[in-house]
C-alpha cells in the first residue's frame, strides 16, 4: 500500500490493467478474502482498515491517486490482511495476479520498489505496534494517584459542601457523656426492676424498640424527643406513675449512644430522678426479661425511575455467561454508563441531607460513632465523583475499583442486617421506605460484577491518561 515514484513503472502497470469505477462506501477488497487483484488508485480516496471478529475497527491509512494496494496478499498468496473501502467515488486500475507477476518478472526496478515499500511498511508497522502497545499498557496502568484523586476530590468536596450546606452536620459526632446523670449498675437496676421501683425508658427508634425491649419499658426515641416528650409525660400520668419514681434510660448502639443523650435531655427537664444503665450498652439484653416481636417486613416505597434503574445490573449475570460478550469492551462502556448513572443517582439522594444518611449508617450498627458523620459526608461525594468518572471515561479502572469496593461494603452491611434481623431501611438510593432484603444484595452483587468487568476489559471511549484527549483507535 505505497506509492510508485517512477513514471515508467506506472506506464507498465497501466498497460496490463483495466480501469474500474468504485462508488462511495463500496469495499474493494475485504479482510480475509483470497487474493485476486492488485490495484492502483487513479483518482478518488479510499480507506484501509482492519476489523476484529468482535467488530473493533482500526483505521490503518487513506489512499489517494498514485497509491496502490493488494500487493501483500498477491505476493504471500495468503488472504487479504485488511479491507479497503472507497471513501468517495474512485477510479482504480485493476490488475490480475498473472499480469502482476509478469510485470514484476519483466520489471526488476518495479519489483525492487515494491520490496522497498513492503520493508518500509513493516518498519512503520513495528513502530505503530510499539506505540499502540505503550498506549495499551498506559491505559491499563493504574496508580495510587488515581485513587488519591478520586478519594481526595470526594473528601474535599464533601467537607467544603458541608460548610455551605443549610443541613450542615458536625464532622465528628461527639459522644456525649452523661453529665450529672447517675449511672446505675446492672444488678442495682435489676433490683429496681424486680421491685417495680423504676420506669425503664428505651431511647432507640420505635422499630428497634418493637423488635426487642425490656419488659414493661416505655419508648421515647431520642430522635423525636421534642415531639414525643409531651406524649411520654401524658403516658406516665395515665399510668399513674408516682412523681418520685426514677427513670432508667437504656438503648445505645455502636454508632450512637442514644441512651446517654436521652438521659441528658431528661435530666434537663428536671422533673424526675434519672439513671442511665451502666456498663455495656447492650448489657440489658441478657440482664432483663425481654419482650420480643417478630420484625415485620418493611413496606416498600415506590422509588420511581431510581427503583427501575437499580434492577439493570441484575442482567449482567446473563451477559457474563456468553464469553465473547463477557470480554467485550462495548459491554464495559455500557456497564460504565449504567453504573455511573446509578451511583450519581445514589449520591444525589444523599448529598443534600447528610444527617438523614448518617442515621441510616447508625442503624446498620457497624460504624464507630466517631466515623459516622465523616462517612455520611464523604461517601455520597465518592459515589458522585466515581460515577461521573465512569460516565466520562476518566480513570475508569480506579473508579470501577472504588465503586466495587463500595459494593462490597454495602453487601456486607446488607447481609449483616438481614442475618441480625435489623428493622432498618437500606438508605441506598431513597431516604426512606427501602426494605433490606436479598434482592438488594443481588442488585449490589450485579453492580460488583459490572465493576469487575470494567476493571478487566474497559478500553473504549476513554479519556486517556496524560491529558483529556478522546482516544481514537487510529494507528
Amino acid at each position, binding site marked *: 500500500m505505497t506509492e510508485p515514484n517512477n513514471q515508467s513503472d506506472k506506464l507498465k502497470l497501466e498497460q496490463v490493467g483495466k480501469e474500474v469505477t468504485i462508488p462511495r462506501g463500496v469495499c474493494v477488497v475485504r479482510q480475509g478474502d483470497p487474493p485476486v487483484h492488485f490495484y492502483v488508485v487513479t483518482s478518488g480516496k479510499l480507506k484501509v482498515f482492519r476489523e476484529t471478529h468482535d467488530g473493533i475497527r482500526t483505521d490503518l491509512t487513506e489512499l489517494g491517486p498514485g497509491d496502490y494496494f493488494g500487493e501483500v496478499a498477491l505476493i504471500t498468496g495468503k488472504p487479504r490482511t485488511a479491507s479497503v473501502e472507497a471513501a468517495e467515488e474512485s477510479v482504480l486500475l485493476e490488475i490480475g495476479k498473472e499480469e502482476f507477476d509478469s510485470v514484476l518478472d519483466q520489471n526488476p526496478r518495479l519489483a525492487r520498489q515494491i520490496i522497498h515499500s513492503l520493508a518500509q511498511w513493516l518498519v512503520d508497522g513495528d513502530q505503530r505496534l510499539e506505540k499502540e502497545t505503550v498506549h495499551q499498557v498506559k491505559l491499563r496502568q493504574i496508580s495510587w494517584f488515581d485513587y488519591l484523586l478520586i478519594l481526595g476530590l470526594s473528601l474535599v468536596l464533601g467537607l467544603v459542601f458541608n460548610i455551605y450546606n*443549610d*443541613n450542615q*452536620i458536625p464532622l465528628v459526632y461527639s459522644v456525649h457523656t452523661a453529665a450529672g446523670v447517675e449511672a446505675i449498675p446492672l444488678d442495682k437496676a435489676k433490683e429496681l426492676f424486680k421491685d417495680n421501683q423504676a420506669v425503664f425508658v428505651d431511647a432507640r*427508634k*420505635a*422499630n428497634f424498640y418493637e423488635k426487642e425491649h425490656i419488659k414493661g419499658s416505655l419508648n421515647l*426515641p*431520642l*430522635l*423525636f424527643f*421534642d*415531639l*414525643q416528650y*409531651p*406524649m411520654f*409525660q*401524658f403516658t406516665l*400520668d395515665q399510668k399513674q406513675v408516682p412523681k418520685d419514681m426514677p427513670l432508667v434510660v437504656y438503648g445505645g448502639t455502636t454508632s450512637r449512644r442514644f441512651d446517654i443523650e436521652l438521659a441528658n435531655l431528661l435530666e434537663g427537664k428536671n422533673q424526675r430522678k434519672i439513671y442511665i444503665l451502666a456498663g455495656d450498652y447492650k448489657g440489658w439484653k441478657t440482664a432483663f426479661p425481654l419482650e420480643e416481636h417478630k420484625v415485620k417486613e*418493611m*413496606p416498600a*416505597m*415506590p422509588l*420511581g*425511575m431510581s427503583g427501575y434503574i437499580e434492577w439493570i445490573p441484575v442482567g449482567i449475570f446473563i451477559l457474563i455467561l456468553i464469553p465473547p460478550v463477557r470480554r467485550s469492551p462495548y459491554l464495559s462502556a455500557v456497564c460504565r454508563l449504567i453504573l455511573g*448513572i446509578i451511583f*450519581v*443517582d445514589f449520591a*444525589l*439522594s444523599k448529598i*443534600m*441531607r*447528610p*444527617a*438523614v*444518611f*448518617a*442515621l441510616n449508617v447508625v442503624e446498620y450498627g457497624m460504624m464507630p460513632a466517631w466515623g459516622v458523620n465523616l462517612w455520611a459526608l464523604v461517601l455520597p461525594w465518592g459515589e458522585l465523583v466515581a460515577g*461521573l468518572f465512569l*460516565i*466520562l471515561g476518566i480513570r475508569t479502572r480506579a473508579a470501577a475499583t472504588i465503586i466495587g469496593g463500595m459494593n462490597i461494603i454495602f453487601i456486607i452491611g446488607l447481609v449483616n442486617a438481614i442475618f441480625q434481623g435489623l428493622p432498618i*431501611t437500606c438508605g441506598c438510593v431513597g*431516604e*426512606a*421506605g427501602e426494605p433490606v432484603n436479598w434482592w438488594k444484595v443481588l442488585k449490589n452483587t450485579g453492580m460488583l460484577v459490572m465493576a469487575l468487568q470494567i476493571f478487566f476489559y474497559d478500553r473504549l471511549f476513554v479519556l486517556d491518561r496524560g491529558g483529556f484527549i*478522546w482516544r481514537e483507535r487510529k494507528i
Partner: protein
Amino acid sequence: MKTRFLIGTMLLGLLCGLFLAGCGESRTPYAGNYRSMEPYAGKGHVELELKENGEANWKLADSGKTIKFKWRVENGRLWFYTKEGAIIHLTPSEGGKLLSADMTGQWHPSCPKDKCITFQRVPGGGS
C-alpha cells in the same frame, strides 16, 4: 466531532435531569396553617405552620414551645426533616385540607392509627 458533541450533550442532559429530579415538587399547594383535629397528649392542639421556603413550625398550644422542621414534597407526600435527620411522613387528603402525620418515623403506606396525628387546614400562613 458531531458524535462527540451529541454524546456530550446527552450526558449533560442526563446529569441535569438527575439533578432536577432531586429537587422535589412545588410546596405551594400545601403551604399554610394547620391544626390537629384532636388534642395531643392531653395538652391542647398542635399548630403546624408550613412556609413556602421549606421551613415548618410545630407548636403545642399549651407548652408554647415551637419545634422547627424543614419540609419538602415528593410523590404527593410531605417529608418533614428533624435537625437530627429523622423523617416524618405526612399524607395529604381531601385536596390538601387534611394532613395525616405518621409519628413512627418510618414510612407506611397508610398512617398507623395509634401513631397518627391528623391536621386540618385553617386560614392564614404559608409565606
